[in-house]
């Protein structure tokens, strides 16, 4: 009467579609939660997903049901002290019932909130939705070409390692059929004649003998057709196909002079992380080059880039010069997509700023895909900003933004990479 089925091997994610529907429906709330979270998030924490918090009232599904009030009759178990007619006064208004009303939510996981996790991919999808890398199509074909070897049919010449056995044997069969067909026809006719003669009442000894000789000769000739010939051999052919490179290098340039405090660096770091995450969605392989500068520039590792303290004046062009040098040495612009991101508090030696502009326009921007400059300051802009403004006018893929605090990072980032429908035209 019973039938056992082991369902454990069946797919377990029956609810995936429904989960996606849920995320689809609450996208706006979830997105808000994501953008709130990005600023709180630990900077090194790029591999994990995110906890999403949605107020419970937004999720409620209303039905007609009885409210509170009215007359209620209830039976309870475990009477230990009551007699009929006992009256129990209600707890004072506002107190007593607290536990049922939901606790205050300070950790973001109170009873009034619906909290759940999304995976890293879902998180990134939401984070970068509607964003696109600018300037991607323009130079897609004229530079940054990498070659990939692809199969392209068969050819008659090649090295033995590339022999395609199936194709070659097909050729062999075809050749054998073609070369033997006339002989086999003759053979057939001879055999037919032979059977006719043999069944004949009269003797045809000499004729039979002649026919048998012919048949033998024909068979020998058919057998002489080689099983395989060099003519049959087919080799797999390969061609080189141009594909856009999937390698990118991201230059992080930062001013580490005395005026840049740790908080400012943290803001810059968050911006770099966002950019890095965003690039991972387009490129398989990303190199990051950290260049920090005060009066001199130096290529450093991540730890030193973000956390070591330096003092001194600021010459921004030194970093740009180093970037040009690194590009020339290691990242030829035909192989690499080059992205630059510079962060500074705006301080620069006044005479140096025009040189920065010149370097950017002549040496860097022609090779780069995109260059962004963020200025993190509460003060008025200085010469560097004004010089860069002129660069921005001349070059479409140079962007500059002013960031005042942590809260600005994500909106500014979105603004920089907003998908532009028109620019494609």
């Amino acid at each position, binding site marked *: *009467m*019973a*039938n*056992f*089925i*082991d*369902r*454990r091997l*069946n797919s*377990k*994610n*029956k*609810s995936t*579609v*429904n*989960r*996606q*529907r*849920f*995320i*689809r*429906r*609450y996208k706006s709330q979830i997105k808000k939660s994501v953008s709130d979270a990005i600023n709180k998030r630990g900077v090194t924490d790029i591999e994990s997903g995110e906890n999403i918090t949605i107020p419970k009232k937004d*999720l*409620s*599904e*209303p*039905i*007609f*049901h*009885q*409210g*509170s*009030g*009215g*007359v*209620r*009759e*209830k*039976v*309870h*178990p*475990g*009477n*230990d002290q*009551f*007699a*009929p*007619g*006992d*009256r*129990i*006064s*209600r707890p004072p208004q506002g107190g007593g019932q607290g536990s049922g009303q939901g606790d205050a939510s300070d950790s973001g996981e109170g009873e009034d909130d*619906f*909290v*759940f*996790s999304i995976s890293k991919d879902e998180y990134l999808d939401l984070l970068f939705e509607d964003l696109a890398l600018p300037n991607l199509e323009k130079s897609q074909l004229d530079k940054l070409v990498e070659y990939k070897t692809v199969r392209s049919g068969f050819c008659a010449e090649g090295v033995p390692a590339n022999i395609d056995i199936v194709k070659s044997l097909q050729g062999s069969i075809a050749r054998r059929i073609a070369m033997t067909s006339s002989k086999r026809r003759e053979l057939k006719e001879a055999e037919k004649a032979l059977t006719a003669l043999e069944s004949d009442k009269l003797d045809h000894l000499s004729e039979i003998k002649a026919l048998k000789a012919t048949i033998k000769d024909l068979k020998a000739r058919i057998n002489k057709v080689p099983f395989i010939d060099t003519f049959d051999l087919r080799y797999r052919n390969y061609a080189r196909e141009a594909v856009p490179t999937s390698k990118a290098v991201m230059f992080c340039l930062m001013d580490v002079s005395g005026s840049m405090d740790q908080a400012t660096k943290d803001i810059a770091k968050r911006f770099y992380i966002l950019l890095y995450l965003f690039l991972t969605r387009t490129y398989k392989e990303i190199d990051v080059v950290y260049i920090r500068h005060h009066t001199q520039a130096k290529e450093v590792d991540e730890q030193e880039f973000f956390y070591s303290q330096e003092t001194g004046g600021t010459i921004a062009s030194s970093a740009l010069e180093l970037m040009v040098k690194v590009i020339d040495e290691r990242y030829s612009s035909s192989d690499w997509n080059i992205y630059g991101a510079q962060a500074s508090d705006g301080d620069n030696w006044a005479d140096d700023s025009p040189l920065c502009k010149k370097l950017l326009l002549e040496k860097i921007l022609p090779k780069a895909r995109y260059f962004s400059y963020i200025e993190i300051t509460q003060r008025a802009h200085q010469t560097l900003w004004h010089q860069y403004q002129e660069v921005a006018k001349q070059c479409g893929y140079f962007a500059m933004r002013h960031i005042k605090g942590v809260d600005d990072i994500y909106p500014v980032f979105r603004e920089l990479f907003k998908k532009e429908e028109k620019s494609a035209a």
Partner: protein
Amino acid sequence: MAKRKPLDDSPDWTFDKLEQYQAEIARVAEHYRLDTYPNQIEVITAEQMMDAYASVGMPIGYNHWTYGKKFIQTEQTYKRGQMGLAYEIVINSEPCISYLMEENTMTMQALVMAHACYGHNSFFKGNYLFKSWTDAGSIIDYLLFAKNYIAECEHKYGIDDVEATLDACHALMNHGVDRYKRPQKISLDEELKRQKEREEYLQSQVNSLWRTLPTQEVSAEKIRQRFPSEPQENLLYFIEKNAPLLKPWQREVVRIVRKVSQYFYPQKQTQVMNEGWACFWHYTILNHLYDEGLVTDKFMLEFLHSHTNVVAQPDYNSPYYSGINPYALGFNMFIDIRRICEQPTDEDKKWFPEIAGSNWLDTLHFAMENFKDESFISQFLSPKMIRDFKLFHIHDDVKNNFVEVSAIHNDNGYQQIRNVLSNQYNLSNLEANIQITEADINGDRSLTLKHIPYSDIPLADSKSEVLKHLHYLWQFDVNLYEEDKHGKDVLLASCPSKEKDIASAK
């Protein structure tokens, strides 16, 4: 009884052992005349159990965000350790599908099989509510049809429209049941065949209902025919048949939600009985196997540990108290009925003259087949049960600043406690009583609903939100009235909202 070699009682289960235990349980169940649908027992993992939770017990569900929400909720609470998963889920279908959790020990699997595959299963097959409301043979096919139909609609008309329609239907789901009429049975083949015809027919009916007849202007003075002629409690049915602007596919969606609601309606009304019956039988069957020597002491200790947890009833002042545990109430009532049959006291003979001393198995089957929670309690709750549970009745009138103990477990209180407890399981007292009283087919096409309060309990604030959903389906004005103490109708809410009218009515 001849002692037999006990079954293997090592904690890990295997499919061979499951078969052996199942066979023994089936033999004992037959001995007790448990009539069941064929069993289909499926072993699943915890993740799959969460999927089953999310689809609220439907083995195949159409796609909707609310199930995603339930899944996420279940997953979160389970992962944080705030909730354990059930040992089993059982589906009222033929064959009867039971899900067993992979993590259960052998003892638990045996308990679960006795509980679900023989207890619940025989209840589904025998109880009158299930017999008249659900068709176990066709439910899986129907759900499959529903899933495909809704997927097809999403494809044709877009996810957003289908989702909005389903949202609206879900809001009215509890009011998609015929409480008084008996439903007709229908097979899937007919359902499919009829569905196409119905689509066209329904639309034509609706069109003729709403056709404007210029000739009527002359006789406008004529007594207005009230439509519908009687108040309608099945809101979804009324919408499906009469909403003027619904598209044919939307009518079918309304119908699907209505059918699903109807399928679950008996389960809502028989929770105490259903669980009680299943607990009684896992307890009785496994004890029977123990008496035969087929299961060991070790097995029984683990079983009793789980069993006791399931049927525990915390007292009203315990921190674990959250109302009466249906497992505890149901299990003890069935045990008590058996006691009344086998060892009646004088009190039992006075209270239950018709069953005291009768054949317990006959009586139990009779009770299972012919009652629902409400009538079951009012028929079989004995004074001994009331004393054992120390039940007491609290009268809570919001107008007083106290609540009153109006009856306890003594001679004067038995009858009253029994009545009140029985009412506590009466769905029509628990769910808001809302009926459609009028659809103005000759005028502005507005829809009028009336809420009839039970014991002065008002309708919760969500009403205006629900009306928005109703308005989505009806697409003309929707007004909800409530009858006050003087029999006068007061406007509670309307959609589109008429704030002024409501304010002035107050």
